[in-house]
């Protein structure tokens, strides 16, 4: 009897925890929608998304986030170009080629990388990478989309490496054995069988890595220069969607148009990360 009551209580507590998590997510989403849509109604979605100028404190104010979207996408694209090939090759090395001792060390290092707080990475980037970029490329400022891409690429690496490595390692040994038995070399086996079989997992890893990058705020705020203008090259300063919210939320009037515009940005970000996670999920499920 006693144990039945315990069972009952524990079951209810677990149920409550689960429900609370869902309720919070729904509430956050609802709040985002409410404030965001209020802004869209007042300012217009088209003007918001495709407006070129983000001048929240001019008179009249202008809330066009096109340059911010371009800024986010440019930094993310740059980070992906750096992190994806490098990450996949690192994963391949760890899963297939490294001797056991080196493999264990590398895995711990990659996990350690994931544990570095982003503000620390941003700070290190600001004092080391930014001056380096400026002097090597001989440009007026090192606070550029390029610097942001490098720092974010570094942040996406651990996700890409560890999930890809799992995917590569879970390729059944029988596939490799089959390839070897047909006279395939190690590299032919990796390229044509292992990578093919692991591809859904690798794509999911890339998507999750990119999802982390696009939502990242602190590091990118510290190294990209935060100029809300459409960049002409990757060596221009840019401002991202996330950095805008972080930098300006403190100065807005609660309930004002600027305040709501920031929620509008939040909604745009949410849509982008939702799409990316959705695609990642599609591939992860395809794997199973």
């Amino acid at each position, binding site marked *: 009897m006693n144990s039945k009551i315990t069972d009952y209580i524990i079951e209810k507590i677990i149920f409550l925890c689960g429900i609370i998590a869902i309720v919070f997510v729904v509430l956050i989403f609802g709040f985002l929608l409410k404030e965001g849509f209020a802004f869209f109604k007042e300012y217009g979605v088209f003007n918001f998304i495709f407006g070129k100028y983000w001048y929240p404190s001019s008179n009249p104010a202008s809330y066009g986030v096109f340059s911010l979207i371009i800024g986010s996408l440019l930094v993310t694209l740059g980070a992906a170009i750096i992190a994806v090939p490098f990450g996949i090759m690192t994963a391949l090395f760890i899963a297939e080629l490294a001797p056991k001792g080196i493999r264990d060390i590398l895995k711990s290092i990659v996990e350690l990388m994931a544990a570095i707080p982003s503000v620390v990475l941003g700070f290190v980037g600001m004092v080391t990478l930014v001056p380096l970029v400026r002097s090597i490329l001989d440009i007026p400022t090192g606070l550029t989309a390029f610097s942001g891409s490098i720092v974010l690429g570094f942040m996406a690496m651990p996700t890409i490496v560890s999930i890809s490595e799992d995917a590569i390692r879970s390729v059944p040994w029988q596939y490799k054995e*089959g390839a070897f038995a047909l006279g395939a070399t190690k590299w032919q086996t990796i390229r044509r069988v292992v990578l093919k079989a692991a591809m859904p997992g690798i794509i999911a890893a890339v998507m999750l890595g990119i999802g982390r990058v696009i939502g990242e705020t602190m590091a990118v705020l510290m190294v990209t220069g935060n100029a809300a203008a459409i960049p002409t090259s990757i060596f221009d300063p840019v401002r991202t969607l996330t950095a805008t919210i972080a930098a300006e939320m403190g100065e807005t009037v609660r309930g004002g148009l600027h305040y709501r515009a920031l929620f509008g940005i939040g909604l745009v970000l949410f849509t982008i990360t939702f799409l990316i996670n959705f695609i990642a999920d599609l591939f992860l499920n395809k794997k199973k």
Partner: protein
Amino acid sequence: MVKKKGEIKIQIKDLNLYYSNFHALKNINMDIRANRITALIGPSGCGKSTLLRTLNRINDTIDGVRITGEILINGKNIYGEDMQVDRVRKEVGMVFQRPNPFPLSIYNNIAFGLEINRMVKSSKETAKIVQESLEDVLLWDDLKNNLKMSALNLSLEQQQRLCVARVIAIKPQIILLDEPCSALDPKSTTNLEELMQELKQKYTLVIVTHNMQQAARLSDDTAYMFMGNLIEFNETSIIFTNPSKKETDDYVSGRFG
């Protein structure tokens, strides 16, 4: 031991194999003849699969394996220093216990071996060999309209036939089969056995089986192994009716194992 017809294809000389400290194959000497089916039988753990897997050096892929002695194929030692292991495996194909087609299309499962071994110059040539190989394993009529389908959607019997097709596409001289029917139902097993009888016209077959009836009805020669030793090797009819060693008699008559 055997002094019968058929040229000698594989000569195993003083072969020893160790998994780290475990002595898994002990002084094996054996001559396997061309265009015959040679069965390796014996209780679990006797070394029959290990022996089979030395013939295409697939054991090399396992850590801690050490081998002494020689295996001559057409008179050349495949463990010799100037031997390239991927060349050996092209000549000695293998079909595994569980069908293991690649997670690719049916077509690409066969094209894979052709391309990595640089056996084809054009996609037309590839298509021709894919068709011939599938015809040889009697899959062509069923699958010719679905060549782009993933091989993983096939039935187990079809998958195993595809694995045979993938091997014969690269025209090896020898085909090793490691309990190829153990994942199949009786009907599929019969079908695959018929296929093997066909294949021995062109290839030398070595099969590991835990099924004595299969060895008896399928093979021309049989080797009985126990605890890493080759106990007796002779024509199948002799092994099953009049073996010279008592251990062999005990095993094939079911008193042991």
